[in-house]
């Protein structure tokens, strides 16, 4: 039996990244990953920097998210993210460079604000790289 579907929207200030009916969504919540299927209770959560995945027709697709919220209603999930990229859009080279830059900045130990920013940048870079690796791993 086909699973019941729910509607997944991922929007960012610059575009609508995704709008599809899916079977399952795994969301990187601020206090941990959570899964959503149809008829979930209404739910509002902050997001962590990480990757979301959704299942549709038996295959998983990953999307990188950084910051924002998820609004869950019984038949839909809306993600409002600061930025969102599908796995194939991720530029690993750039992420690696960003990672190095962030690490370099963290080593220098400057102001607190810079520290926080560098840490966030590092986190984003690591998550992007991880996601890319996972996606290419799962497709083999």
């Amino acid at each position, binding site marked *: 039996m086909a699973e019941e579907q729910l509607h997944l929207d991922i929007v*960012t200030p*610059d575009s*609508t990244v995704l709008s599809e009916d899916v079977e399952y969504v795994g969301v990187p*919540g*601020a206090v941990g990953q959570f899964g959503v299927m149809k008829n979930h209770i209404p739910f509002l959560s902050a997001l962590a920097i990480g990757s979301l995945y959704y299942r549709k027709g038996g295959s998983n697709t990953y999307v990188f998210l950084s910051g924002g*919220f998820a609004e869950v209603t019984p038949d839909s999930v809306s993600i409002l993210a600061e930025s969102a990229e599908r796995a194939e859009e991720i530029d690993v080279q750039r992420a690696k460079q960003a990672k190095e830059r962030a690490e370099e900045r963290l080593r220098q130990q400057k102001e607190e604000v810079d520290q926080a920013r560098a840490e966030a940048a590092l986190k984003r870079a690591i998550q992007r790289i991880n996601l890319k690796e996972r996606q290419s791993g799962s497709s083999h």
Partner: protein
Amino acid sequence: MASLKEVKDKIASVRKTKQITRAMNMVASAKLRKAQGRIERFRPYAEKYYEIMGDLSQGVDSSAHPLLEQREEINNIAVVLVTSERGLCGAFNSNLVQTATNFAANRVDSGQNVKFYCMGKKGAKDIKKSPYELVSDHSDVMENFDFTLASQIGAEIIHAYTQQEVDEVHLVYGRFVSVIRQEATRLQILPMSQEGGEEQSGEQSGEQAGSKAEYTYEPSVEGILDELLPRFIKVQLYRGLLETSASEHAARMTAMDNATRNCDDMISNLTLSYNKARQAAITSELLDIVGGAEALKG
């Protein structure tokens, strides 16, 4: 009457000006299309955001978060003024500056102190000449910006607000009504008035009045508000930036269209006086010849 050559040169120069204004009109219309596209792409995000804000503000008390709280004593006002980087767009920038300074003058009269945050060169230039304090000036940003700019300015404002440096924040931007109409608009963004939030979410919040019932919040209502409210400021700023940029191009289009039309008028007037001058020259030459012939006869 001006000599033939003078008029001819004048016509040539007006023609060149016309070429320029027409080109600028076309560039502005291409840029306007792009800016409108960005507004379109931003809309789903903004609408969803207003919807969530509307849902949330219903169940939340105004003392739940510092950004919602109305301060009892309002001493310092911040005005965020968004203008364009370049001129040649009619009265667009001066309208914006006018709206902002009128508001400021009003507040100064009631004993409050007004500080300006400017985006775009044109506004900053005028505010520097005015008696008001210019706290921060972001120039050369309007030509090419993304959400990061709104984030950065939002963070700056929220910082000033939470440090009690300012007690109220207003945004002045060019609201894009249509290609022929742009309005300089003022919007209070801090402290957030809950009515404002609902008003903007408008129909959506009405429609769902029944279904919004109970949300579960994670990590907690406060945690969510901590994330949601500051970003809401940024969303509003971003919208202001996008609209101002669309308005700027629309205003420039109209201004350049008028200029092109004026050039046409000037060319036709000048052509007329050129022809008159030419005719006058011919007539006087003829008179000379006729007069000469008459003299020979006699």
